[in-house]
C-alpha cells in the first residue's frame, strides 16, 4: 500500500466521521425541537390552570386544583419549573395552594434527591426547591446545604432557609455567614425576608459579651437589625458604640441611622470624638438619617472635621435634610459646604 492509498483512506475516514457528526447533530437538534414543541403544546393549556389556581375565584380554584392533581408525570414535567418560579411571586393562600400541588406531584422527594447529586447545579436547585416547598420536615436538608462543598449551593441554601423562620435556623444562618463572609449578602437578603423572628435572634447576639470571633457575628447582627427595622434593638445597638471594634461601631451606627430613633442622637454625637475617620463618617450619615435639631447640630460641627471625607459626609447629609440643612450649609465657611451647594445647584440646573 502506497502513501497515496493511506492518505486517500484517511481522508475518506475523516470525511465519513465528519458526516456522521453532522448528521448526529441534526438528528439531536430535530429531536430537541420536537420535544420542545411537545412540551409547549402540553404547557399552554396547563399553565392556564396553574394561573387559575393562583389567582382564580373559589370555584375556579377547585376546578384547577382537580385538573392539576390528575396530571400525568409528563404533563407535570412540562409545567413544574414554571410553577416553582411562580410560588415566590404569590402571597398568602394563593402561594400555599400552588405549593400543595407541587408537593402532591412528588416534588419534595425529587428536590431532596437533587440535594445529594454530584452536580452542584442540581444540589443548588434541590435546596432552592425545598425552600419554595417550605415543608418543615425537610428543614434539616436545607440546613445541611450551608455546609455544601460548593459556594453557589451554600448561597442558595442560605436564601432558601428564609422559608424556615425558626430560632435555631436563624442561629445557624448567622453562624454560617460569620464563618464565611462571602455569604453576608445572601444572609442579609434572607433575614430581610424573615423579618421579625430574625430580629429577635439578632438582638440576642448583640447583647452577648464581645470577644474575638463574636465581634464579626455582632457586626452582622447589627446590620441585620437595621435592615428589618427592629426598634427594640436600639439600646443593644447603642451598647455596641462603646466597644473597641471600629467595624462593629460602624455597623451599629448604620443600623441606628436606619432605625431613626431620636434618642440615639446622644450616643451618635459621642462618636464625633472617635479616632477613626470611618466611624466619624458613619456617625454623620446616621445623624443625617435620624434628623431633628440635634442631628443638624452634629452635622454642622461635622462640616469642620479634619478629615475631608467626614466633612463631605456631613455636607451631603445636610443637603438632604431640607431647608434647615441647606441653611446651615449656606452660612458655613467650610469648603465642603460650598462644594455641596454648588453640586446641588448643578444638579438642579
Amino acid at each position, binding site marked *: 500500500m502506497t502513501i497515496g492509498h493511506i492518505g486517500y483512506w484517511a481522508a475518506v475516514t475523516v470525511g465519513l466521521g465528519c458526516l456522521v457528526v453532522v448528521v448526529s447533530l441534526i438528528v439531536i437538534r430535530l429531536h430537541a425541537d420536537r420535544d420542545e414543541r411537545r412540551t409547549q403544546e402540553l404547557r399552554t393549556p396547563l399553565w*392556564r390552570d396553574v*394561573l*387559575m389556581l*393562583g*389567582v*382564580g*375565584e373559589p370555584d*375556579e380554584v377547585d376546578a384547577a386544583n382537580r385538573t392539576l392533581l390528575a396530571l400525568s408525570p409528563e404533563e407535570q414535567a412540562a409545567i413544574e419549573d*414554571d410553577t416553582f*418560579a*411562580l410560588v*415566590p*411571586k*404569590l*402571597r*398568602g393562600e*394563593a*402561594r400555599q395552594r400552588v405549593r400543595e400541588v407541587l408537593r402532591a406531584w412528588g416534588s419534595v422527594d425529587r428536590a431532596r434527591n437533587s440535594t445529594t447529586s454530584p452536580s452542584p447545579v442540581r444540589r443548588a436547585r434541590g435546596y432552592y426547591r425545598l425552600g419554595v416547598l417550605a415543608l418543615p420536615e425537610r428543614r434539616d436538608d436545607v440546613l445541611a446545604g450551608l455546609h455544601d462543598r460548593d459556594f453557589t449551593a451554600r448561597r442558595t441554601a442560605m436564601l432558601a432557609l428564609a422559608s424556615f423562620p425558626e430560632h435555631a435556623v436563624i442561629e445557624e444562618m448567622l453562624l454560617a455567614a460569620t464563618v464565611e463572609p462571602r455569604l453576608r449578602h445572601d444572609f442579609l437578603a434572607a433575614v*430581610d425576608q424573615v423579618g421579625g423572628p430574625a430580629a429577635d435572634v439578632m438582638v440576642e447576639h448583640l447583647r452577648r459579651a464581645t470577644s474575638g470571633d463574636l465581634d464579626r457575628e455582632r457586626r452582622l447582627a447589627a446590620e441585620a437589625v437595621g435592615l428589618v427595622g427592629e426598634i427594640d434593638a436600639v439600646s443593644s445597638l447603642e451598647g455596641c458604640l462603646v466597644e473597641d471594634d471600629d467595624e462593629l461601631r460602624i455597623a451599629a451606627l448604620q443600623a441606628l441611622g436606619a432605625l431613626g430613633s431620636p434618642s440615639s442622637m446622644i450616643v451618635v454625637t459621642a462618636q464625633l470624638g472617635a479616632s477613626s475617620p470611618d466611624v466619624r463618617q458613619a456617625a454623620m450619615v446616621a445623624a443625617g438619617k435620624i434628623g431633628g435639631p440635634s442631628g443638624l447640630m452634629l452635622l454642622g460641627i461635622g462640616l469642620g472635621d479634619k478629615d475631608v471625607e467626614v466633612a463631605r459626609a456631613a455636607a451631603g447629609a445636610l443637603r438632604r435634610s431640607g431647608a434647615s440643612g441647606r441653611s446651615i450649609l449656606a452660612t458655613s465657611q467650610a469648603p465642603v459646604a460650598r462644594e455641596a451647594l454648588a453640586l446641588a445647584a448643578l444638579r438642579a440646573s
Partner: protein
Amino acid sequence: MARILVADDDVDIRELVEFKLTTMGHEIVAVGDGAAAIDACMAQKPDLAVLDVMMPGVSGLDAIRAIRAEPSLADLPVILLTARAQESDVETGFDSGADDYITKPFSPRELASRVQALLSRSR
C-alpha cells in the same frame, strides 16, 4: 369592562396580573418596560395603569411623570407594583402622581379590590 395597562419586566408577574384582570372581565394591554408603557398609554388611552417600579430603562416612577405630563392622561389612575425593599420609593411614587401601590409578592384578591376601587372612584 375597563382597558387596563399592565407594565412589568417580570413575565410571571405580568402574566399573573394580566390573567387575574382578564378573568375579572377587563381588557389588558401588557408591556415589559417603562418606555413601552408610556407609548401604550399615549396610543391606547387605558382606564387604569398598573406599573412596576423597577423596570429596565424607564422606571415606573419616570413613566408616571411622563404620563402625568400629558394633559389627556393627567387623571389616569395608576397603581404601582413594588418589592418590599423598595417601599421607600412609594413616597416618591405618590409625589409623582401614583394613586395606590401594591407590594410584591402580591395577593390576587388585594390586586382585584384595589383595581375595582380605583376604577369606581374614577368613573
